[in-house]
């Protein structure tokens, strides 16, 4: 039998609000029927109870802060929790809207025993601001039932778990009210009574759903579980409790996100090169702040100072209601800028491969900005030298026909070619030439030119050509 641990987060949305002062009464109401579904301590003290209407609760507290329930936020938070837990446990399943199911049995080979395992899990959960209930059982449904009932007990003994489970009333099960009513009419009020009835008998009398549920609850039937594997990218959203108009007030919430990032990167031994901060504004516009660190960094403190430098140039059109932090460029630490070795005599020395360098350059400047030059098997000046963006540094042999390389060419070719020939405007003296190029009749770039090396009066060496109609153009510089 597989042991399962279920974590139930009763006030997921409420706890996720970024909140500094705790004396503010907060409630989350369901959009369907305006009933209170989550509330904090201050609201509870004012006499507000779950299930109350909005009007009643507003009457009980004059400065009540009301948030509509948002399933998206809860799902995001649930994923974030699973990201945190994923570092200590492997099989996690999301039970929307408020639960996480962990498969314990396999993990017990890694941890000494259940207590040790639970200590690791609870240490992770303690870092998070969420209230939670927990319970273990030998079927996912039973664990969920016990956890939602607030059992908060970790047992491994099947008998013990079963005895607790048996005491739970039917109203706590996932059976519909109609089915519970049906069972009540025949005198079945607790799970223990239901478990006493043999399956075959149950199947005769009741709906197939009831049978399935009971089977899955006791672990006789398989309950389908889909495991969730967190993505490898850091992307977190933080909703702000209050609207921020001044970017300096973002200091604390941003630091919170950055410290999540810090632990995320630290656990994976990675450095971030580029972070993207989205500021969600009330008027539905997003402004984005991109911060780069060429050296790569994971420390929250350093990123914080970088972001604060960027904030100076950000203009807001509306107050900010939430922020998202996303690590857009992350590399293993060994490949980051910090890959320097300390030589005893020469001090710090870097050892990047050319490819790493090229990818760094391309990431910032764009693919086309970093090029390689190669020879083309064409005799026409300007066409025999090709610039192409680098895909990979190939070590292919140059496809140049050595026949057409005459020793003379080594001395008569300029270092820089002008992209388009310019009209010669300076007085100059011819020192070498002409060298006639009359070729290319087979395509559109037909060329008839006489090339000369000239020296201008100002001392520059130019590669000029004369066209058949006696116009003079500069084509290259002997830099």
């Amino acid at each position, binding site marked *: 039998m597989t042991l399962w641990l279920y974590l139930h987060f009763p006030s997921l949305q409420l706890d996720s609000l970024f909140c500094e002062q705790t004396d503010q009464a907060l409630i989350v109401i369901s959009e369907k029927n305006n009933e209170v579904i989550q509330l904090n301590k201050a609201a509870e003290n004012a006499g507000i109870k779950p299930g109350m209407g909005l009007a009643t609760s507003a009457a009980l507290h004059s400065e009540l802060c009301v948030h509509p329930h948002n399933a998206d936020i809860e799902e995001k938070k649930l994923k974030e929790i699973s990201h945190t837990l994923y570092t200590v446990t492997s099989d996690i399943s999301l039970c929307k809207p408020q639960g996480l199911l962990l498969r314990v049995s396999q993990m017990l080979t890694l941890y000494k025993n259940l207590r040790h395992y639970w200590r690791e899990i609870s240490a992770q959960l303690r870092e998070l601001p969420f209230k939670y209930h927990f319970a273990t059982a030998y079927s996912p449904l039973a664990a969920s039932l016990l956890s939602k009932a607030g059992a908060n007990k970790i047992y491994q003994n099947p008998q013990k778990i079963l005895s607790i489970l048996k005491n739970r009333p039917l109203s706590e099960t996932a059976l519909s009210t109609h089915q519970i009513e049906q069972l009540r009419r025949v005198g079945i009020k607790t799970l223990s009574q239901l478990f006493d009835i043999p399956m075959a008998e149950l199947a005769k009398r009741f709906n197939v759903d009831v049978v399935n549920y009971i089977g899955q609850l006791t672990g006789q039937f398989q309950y389908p579980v889909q495991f969730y594997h967190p993505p490898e990218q850091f992307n977190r959203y933080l909703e702000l409790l209050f609207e921020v108009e001044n970017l300096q007030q973002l200091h604390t919430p941003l630091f919170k996100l950055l410290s999540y990032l810090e632990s995320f990167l630290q656990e994976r031994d990675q450095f971030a090169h580029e972070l993207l901060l989205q500021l969600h504004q009330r008027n539905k516009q997003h402004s984005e702040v991109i911060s780069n660190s060429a050296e790569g960094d994971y420390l929250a403190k350093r990123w914080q100072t970088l972001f604060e430098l960027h904030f100076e140039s950000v203009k807001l059109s509306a107050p900010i209601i939430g922020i998202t932090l996303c690590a857009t460029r992350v590399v293993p630490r060994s490949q980051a800028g910090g890959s320097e070795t300390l030589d005893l005599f020469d001090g710090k020395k870097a050892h990047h491969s050319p490819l790493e360098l090229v990818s760094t350059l391309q990431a910032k400047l764009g693919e086309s900005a970093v090029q390689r030059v190669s020879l083309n098997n064409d005799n026409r000046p300007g066409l025999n030298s090709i610039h192409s963006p680098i895909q990979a540094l190939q070590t292919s042999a140059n496809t140049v026909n050595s026949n057409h390389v005459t020793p003379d060419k080594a001395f*008569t*070719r300029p270092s820089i070619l002008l992209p388009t020939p310019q009209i010669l405007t*300076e007085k100059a003296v011819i020192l070498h030439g002409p060298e006639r190029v009359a070729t290319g009749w087979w395509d559109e770039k037909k060329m008839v030119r006489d090339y000369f*090396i000239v020296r201008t009066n100002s001392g*520059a*060496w130019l590669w000029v050509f004369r066209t058949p109609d006696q116009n003079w153009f500069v084509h290259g*510089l002997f830099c």
Partner: protein
Amino acid sequence: MNDLLDFLAKKNLIWRGKQNTPASHLEQSGYQSLDEHLKGGFPQRGVISINSPTGIGELRLLIPGMLEKKRLTVFINPPGHLNAEFLHHQGFDLNLVLLISTHKKNEALWSAEQCLKSGACSAVVLWQNFQEVHQVKRLQLACNTGNCVQFLLRTTQTHQQQNLFSLPVSLNINLRPHWQGLETTITKQKGGWPLKKFTIDMSSHWPYLSYQKANNVVAFPHTKAM
């Protein structure tokens, strides 16, 4: 105070005027007269500033010293298309040549710094006229990290405009055109004195680009003054 001086002297961080041997490693430039004046050649790492008008042979002066086969040579923002044929004839392995073109000045400096400190390059040539003191200092540090040499090619006029500050470069060379090669002045040299004008004869490397051998000078037929 004396202790401190001793300490710095032991670390080879003090240069004394009577000292003749330069401290850092040198790489032969390939031009004999230049090597003689530099007591051996260009420094193997550090920033070398070349102030020169465009097209008089400033790059040709550097090429023989850059022909290291194993690591990359990077050219940033050259004043036109770099000619593959030229590099090939000079003996470059074209697979080890990178060409970077940037739109912004700061991006050029950033990429130079990245290349220098990566350790994957042996030389970086940057065509840029104006740098601040702190920018050059950063390049200098990057050179030391990556064991690389940075050539800054600047056109002379702008240099004269901002002559007020001396940049923290290892070597500062001013070039003027000359019929046989280049007229050279070394205005700053790490571990050495500034030097007066001398001529680098490039006629053996570039027979067609010097007056001596080119006896066939013809008056230019029609120059179109535009």
